[in-house]
């Protein structure tokens, strides 16, 4: 298939359609509104539905409803909007409903600003909503990778019956790059007759399915949480993704960076290499599960003296890096969080 030139936001919308997801509910917010604009045109062409909710809270329950009924469904928003959706996402995790949530991050806290940011790392990987749950979180560094992660996100959400989040910064949404939509990533939805409330006619069943996150019996609630925990443990074993860059060199510094920030780091690493300075990088492609073992192994070599967390936030991922490195090497932080993306020159310094 030939390439097309797309904005990240448009490509994310198209990738969902190519994944067979024809249900999109959303509420506009900069810098992700182009997903809604694009799908407002495209969904009618392919027989799908785009419905704009009256708020992000409403949207999260539209997603819950569609997922509970067994449909492939997704939404997109940006930081403040994701905060509003957090209640619905917690309900979905408790009730084991698959769906894809895309966060094209902007500056925060509060209204913050409309420029790119990575300050929702804690929110995505640790504290999105109440209760004991996790999301599988993937962080693309290019428009093409955003497409591929979107196309992988639906089958992963169904495999774990858990929400999956694509965490991109504003640049991922706004930048334009040539992309293609690999047919090899097309998937059929898993059979969900055992749990989805898709109607007795379609399921040809005599038993009623019930989707719920309410467990009044303490033992039943504990068991539900143990079941969720076992899924997150399975994600840690099976879903870690990362990319290593220049790690076959005798690097003195190991950078850990994700998303578009990692591309700035790459440029910096190349320019330092030209000056005879070797720096390696591990780029987590999944933020949960986090590539702990890979980072520890890359830090625990004799030529590596320091690990640097470079992020467009005030030091959030650094906590996971410190946990991974287990005190074997010092871990430093560099970042910016006002909307200006750190330049390659600043990373070098």
């Amino acid at each position, binding site marked *: 298939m030939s*390439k*097309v*030139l*797309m*904005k990240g936001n*448009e490509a994310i919308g*198209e990738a969902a359609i190519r994944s067979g997801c024809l249900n999109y509910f959303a509420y506009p917010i*900069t*810098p992700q509104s*182009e997903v809604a*604009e*694009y799908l407002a*045109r495209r969904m009618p062409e392919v027989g799908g539905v785009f419905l704009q909710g009256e708020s992000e809270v409403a949207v999260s329950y539209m997603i819950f409803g569609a997922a509970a009924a067994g449909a492939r469904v997704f939404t997109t928003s940006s930081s403040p909007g994701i905060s509003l959706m957090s209640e619905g996402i917690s309900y979905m995790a408790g009730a084991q409903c698959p769906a894809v949530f895309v966060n094209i991050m902007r500056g925060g806290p509060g209204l913050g*600003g*409309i*420029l*790119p940011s990575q300050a929702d790392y804690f929110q995505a990987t640790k504290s999105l909503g109440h209760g004991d749950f996790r999301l599988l979180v993937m962080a693309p560094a290019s428009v093409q990778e955003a497409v591929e992660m979107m196309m992988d996100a639906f089958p992963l959400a169904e495999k774990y019956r858990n929400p999956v989040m694509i965490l991109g910064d*504003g*640049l991922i949404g*706004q*930048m*334009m*790059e*040539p992309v293609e939509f690999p047919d090899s990533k097309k998937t059929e939805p898993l059979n969900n007759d055992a749990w989805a409330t898709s109607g007795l006619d379609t399921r040809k069943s005599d038993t009623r399915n019930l989707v719920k996150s309410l467990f009044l019996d303490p033992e039943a609630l504990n068991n539900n949480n143990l079941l969720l925990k076992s899924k997150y443990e399975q994600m840690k074993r099976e879903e870690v993704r990362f990319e290593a860059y220049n790690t076959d060199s005798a690097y003195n510094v190991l950078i850990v960076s994700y998303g*578009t920030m990692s*591309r*700035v780091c*790459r*440029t910096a690493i190349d320019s330092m290499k030209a000056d005879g300075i070797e720096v390696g990088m591990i780029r987590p492609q999944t933020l949960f599960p986090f590539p702990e073992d890979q980072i520890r192994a890359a830090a625990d070599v004799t030529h590596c003296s320091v690990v640097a967390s470079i992020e467009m936030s005030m030091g959030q991922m650094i906590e996971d890096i410190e946990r991974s490195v287990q005190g074997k090497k010092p871990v430093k932080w560099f970042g910016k969080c006002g*909307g200006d*993306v*750190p*330049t*390659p020159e600043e990373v070098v310094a």
Partner: protein
Amino acid sequence: MKIDLDGIVIITGNYGSGKTEVSVNLAAERNSGGTEVRLADLDLVNPYFRTREARHQLRNLGIEVILPPEQYMTADLPILAPQVAGAIREQTAMVILDTGGDDVGATVLATLADRLQGISFKMLQVVNPFRPFTETVEGCLKIKSEIEAASKVEMTGIVGNANLIDETQAGHIYDGYEFAAEFARQSGLKLEFVTVPEILKADVDTGRFACPVLTIKRQLVPPWKQAVALT
């Protein structure tokens, strides 16, 4: 063949067609040819990657760039600088108005309709057939009529801007030229010029084109890349 444009030139097109890259490079090209140029950023719909990103380079060349006040430059607000109307009235040798994408982005022109009354100007539609919704001439014609309806201004010409940014090859430029020429035939509009990225200049035989060529020195780059110096 030289680009034959001066006076007021309005740059429109579908979202992401390359209006700003064309506007900035057209301003620099005309400026280097000795024409006094003003460039107004009328993109009220796009949050990133706007003319304002190239403002320092343009101002160093002596090109006046009309923008919203600095403190609102990253606000999510549709601010139309009052100087725009003035620039139209003052009739500088060349005034380029870089609008936002689609009919939504062109709506701003309707607010300037009074100012444009009785003045001669050109309104150009930038097309890139590698973008969604403009892969066909029908798609371009649809966008044309939507922009005309929203802006209350008639299109006068076409700019062929076929590209895949870093992955553009000579073949894309040739195909894009044929596409733009076909769009010109079907719409009755003049093909004003086509663009060629500077790095491909040596590979593209511009003798194949029956229209002028604008060389593009890419300005709207992500933070890990360097913009090409304008001259």
